[in-house]
């Protein structure tokens, strides 16, 4: 499983992350008024993002869950449920 910038952007948009450009693209998820997940990606285009296993960890996802998400079979509601099951929410 590899993640490029466009995959990351699609994912955080689908899950409802807010984003801000810094040296990197910062992304964070708010739920019920709380900031619950935070991650970032580089501005590298057209190549795999560096250290994407840490991005996945920051998003609290296993490889399989990330794979599902990239296949579009994990919705925002599903992601929220996933975070709740993991005790993040």
């Amino acid at each position, binding site marked *: 499983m590899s993640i490029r910038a466009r995959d990351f952007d699609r994912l955080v948009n689908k899950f409802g992350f807010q984003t801000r450009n*810094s*040296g*990197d693209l*910062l992304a964070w998820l708010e*739920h019920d*008024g*709380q*900031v*619950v*997940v*935070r991650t*970032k990606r*580089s501005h590298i285009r057209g*190549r*795999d993002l*560096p*250290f994407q296993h*840490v991005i996945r*960890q*920051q998003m*609290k996802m296993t490889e399989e869950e990330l794979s599902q998400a990239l296949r579009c079979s994990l919705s925002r509601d599903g992601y929220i449920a996933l975070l709740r099951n993991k*005790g*993040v*929410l």
Partner: protein
Amino acid sequence: MTPDTVVRATLEEVPGAIKDDASRIPPNMAAGPKHDEPIIQDFEQQSEPTIGDSVQIGSLLDSRLRMHSAVTISLEQEGPWHVAYCEDLNEFGYGTDPLSAVQDLRQTLAELYWELKSDRERLGQDLAQTWDRLSALIFEA
């Protein structure tokens, strides 16, 4: 580079007057040389870190912030990218060479500090724990 090398811009950036708060620093973050120990190499003068090194950073790329103690980072390479990884905070910096990766991580930790500080009243439990670790490690000048 030896594992206990401290990456620090200047010795003066980390004053030795914060001993009262040392107990707040998690044990796994407190392993590095303390700022009152006379071992500091000047960051600009030391040899460039290389892949496989475990180095410590004792300052950030933000003149408003200081560190109570150095934090250990590892240097890795992924394809064309060099990555500096701080396992204690699960944060990384990257660049085209080890030095720029370390610099990016120093910038990242500073940004993380300000972001979590601004949201500290509404952080989820996971990020609240990160803030606790970060605020025990970093203080404002």
